[in-house]
C-alpha cells in the first residue's frame, strides 16, 4: 500500500515524530552536559552519571520501585490471566457482566480517584480489622497489582478470543482434565500475551506517581515520588542522566523485540 502518500501527509506525520522525539533527544544530550545550568552547554561530561549513582536517596527509591514493580507485575499476571480466561472461556455465569465491567474500568479511571479510594479503603480496613497496619510497600503492591490486573486481563482476553478453541477441544476429546488442559495447552498458547502483560505491568508500576503517593506510608518513597519532588524543587541534572539510562534500557528492549519479530517473519513467510 505505497500509494496515496501526499507531501502534506508525509510532512505532518514527520512533524508528529519530531514532536515525539525532540524533548527526549534534548534530555539525552543535556545529560552529558558539564554545566549545572540545563540550557548552557559546558562541554561533554559524565559527571551527572556518577552523581546519580552516588545519590543514595535516588538509589534507595529505585530499588524500592523495582521490587514493587516486580511483585506487582507478577501478582497482576496471575490474577489478570485468570480474569481474561474466565471472561473468554468460561461461558456464562452469574456476574459475568459485572466482572467484565470491573476489568475495563481501571483502564480509564482517573488516577487521583483510584489512589484516593484505595487509601480510604486501607484506612477503613485498618480501623475495622487492624490490617494493613500503616501503609508501605504492601499497600503499594496491592494498589499496583489491581490496576495492572486490568491491562493483563484485556491482553489475555483478546489473545484468547483471537485464538480458536479447536486445540483445546482436541485435547479435551483426548481426555485432558481441566487442569492439565490449562497448563499444557492453553497457557503455552497465550504465553506471548502473558509476557507482554507482565512487561506492561512492570512499566506501569515503575512509572506510577499518583497512586503510589496516596497509598505509600512515610519513608516509602518510590522513584517517581523522589523525581517529582526533585523536579518541583528545581534544576536537577542527575534526573537527565537517570532518564537517559531508562530510555536506553527501553530502546534496547524494543530493538531486541523488532529483531526477534523480523527473525520470526523470515522463518514463517506468510
Amino acid at each position, binding site marked *: *500500500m*505505497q500509494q*496515496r*502518500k501526499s507531501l502534506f*501527509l508525509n510532512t*505532518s*506525520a514527520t512533524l*508528529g*515524530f519530531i*514532536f*515525539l*522525539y525532540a*524533548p*527526549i533527544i*534534548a*534530555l539525552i544530550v543535556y545529560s552529558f552536559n558539564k554545566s549545572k545550568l540545563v*540550557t548552557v552547554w559546558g562541554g561533554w561530561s559524565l559527571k551527572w552519571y556518577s552523581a546519580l549513582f552516588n545519590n543514595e536517596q535516588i538509589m534507595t527509591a529505585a530499588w524500592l520501585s523495582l521490587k514493587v514493580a516486580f511483585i506487582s507485575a507478577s501478582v497482576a499476571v496471575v490474577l*489478570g490471566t*485468570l*480474569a481474561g*480466561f*474466565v471472561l473468554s472461556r*468460561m*461461558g*456464562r*455465569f*452469574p456476574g459475568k457482566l459485572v*466482572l467484565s465491567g470491573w*476489568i*475495563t*474500568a481501571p483502564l*480509564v479511571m*482517573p*488516577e*487521583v*480517584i483510584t489512589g*484516593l479510594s484505595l487509601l*480510604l*479503603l486501607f*484506612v477503613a480496613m485498618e480501623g475495622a480489622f487492624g490490617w494493613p497496619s500503616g501503609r508501605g510497600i504492601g499497600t503499594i503492591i*496491592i494498589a499496583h497489582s489491581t490496576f495492572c*490486573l486490568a491491562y493483563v*486481563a*484485556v491482553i489475555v482476553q483478546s489473545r484468547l478470543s483471537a485464538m480458536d*478453541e479447536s486445540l*483445546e477441544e482436541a485435547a*479435551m476429546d483426548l481426555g485432558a482434565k*481441566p487442569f492439565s488442559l490449562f497448563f499444557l495447552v492453553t497457557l503455552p498458547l497465550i504465553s506471548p500475551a502473558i509476557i507482554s502483560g507482565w512487561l506492561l505491568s512492570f*512499566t506501569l508500576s515503575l512509572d506510577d*506517581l*499518583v497512586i503510589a503517593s*496516596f497509598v505509600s506510608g512515610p519513608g516509602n518513597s518510590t522513584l517517581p515520588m523522589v*523525581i*517529582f519532588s526533585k*523536579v*518541583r524543587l528545581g534544576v536537577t541534572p542527575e534526573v537527565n542522566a537517570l*532518564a537517559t539510562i531508562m530510555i536506553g534500557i*527501553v530502546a534496547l*528492549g*524494543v530493538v531486541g523485540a523488532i529483531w526477534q519479530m523480523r527473525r520470526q517473519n523470515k522463518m514463517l513467510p506468510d
Partner: protein
Amino acid sequence: MNAPVSLNIPGQKPVSGLGRLIYTLRHLSIGRWTVISLPSLWLAVFFFVPFLVVFKISLAEPTISIPPYSSLLEWDPEESFATLKLNLGNYIYLFEDTFYLEAYLSSIRIAAVSTFFTLLVAFPMAYLIARSKSTTRILLLSLVILPFWTSFLLRVYAWMGFLKKNGLINEFLLSFGIIDQPLTMLQTDFAVYIGIVYTYLPFMVLPLYTALEKMDITLLEAAEDLGGRPMQNFFLITLPLAIPGIIAGCLLVFIPAVGEYVIPALLGGSDTLMIGKVLWDEFFLNRDWPMASAVATVMLIVLVLPIMLIRNTNSGKEAF
C-alpha cells in the same frame, strides 16, 4: 468447553431470578467456582468497595483525629440506640462555592481542547503507519510506542526544559531574531495542552492505526476512479471509516486527562484549574478527606461513569 446452563429452553418458562442463580451456582463445579471467584473477589475488594468507602466518607464531617473524619453511626450507650449522621454539607458546599464548578468546567475544557489537538497530531501519523510496507510499519509503530515505555514523569520534565523562559525554544527563537523577548510558555494553559498532547499521543495513534489498517483501500480507489478529489475522498470515506478508532482514541485521552494531576502541577500555572489538582490539594494540603471524597464522587458520577457506559456499549472496546 462444557458450556454452563442455557436456562431458557424454548417452550419452557425461564426460571426466575433467584431460582436461576441457585441453579447456576449448583452447576458450577468447585474448580470453576474458584477460578471465577479469585479475580472477581480481588476486584470487588480492591476496586469496587473502595468507591463505596469514598462515598461513605464524603458524607462524613472533617474532624481533627486519626483518621480525620467523623463516623456516620453514632452509638448512644444509655439508650442503646444508634443514629445515622449524614452530612450533605460537602456536596452543598461543592455547588455553592463556584471554585469547584469552575474547576470541573475548566478540566473538561482543557481535556477537550487537548484531545482535539491530540487527534490532529495523531491522525497523519496513524494514517502513514497504516499505509506503509510491513517492515517500516513495525519500525514506525515501535517509534510511537517507545516513548510510552519510558517514564511519563521524565517526559513531562523534558518539556519543562523546552518551555522555560531560558529554555531551548526561547533560546532558539531569540538567536534567530524571531522574537526579541522570551515568551512565557511554562506555567500557562498552553504548556498543559502541550503536555497532555505529548504524553497521550500513543493512546490516540494506536486505536486510529487499528481502524485505518482495517480499512479497505479499494474503496478509495473506486472513489478516485469515480472522480473524487483527495479532500472529498478523505472526508467522505477515510474519516467515516476511522470513526470507531477516533471515538476509542478520544475516550482514552479525554477521561484520564480530565483527572490529570502531574501535568498541571508541573507545567501549569497557579491559575490553571483542574479538578485532579483540586482533589489532590484538598487531600494533601487541606487534609479535608470528606471534601476530597465529595469531589471524587461528583467527578465519578458526572464525568467518568457516563463515558464508561458509552464506551462499554459501543465499539470503543476494539481499541485494546
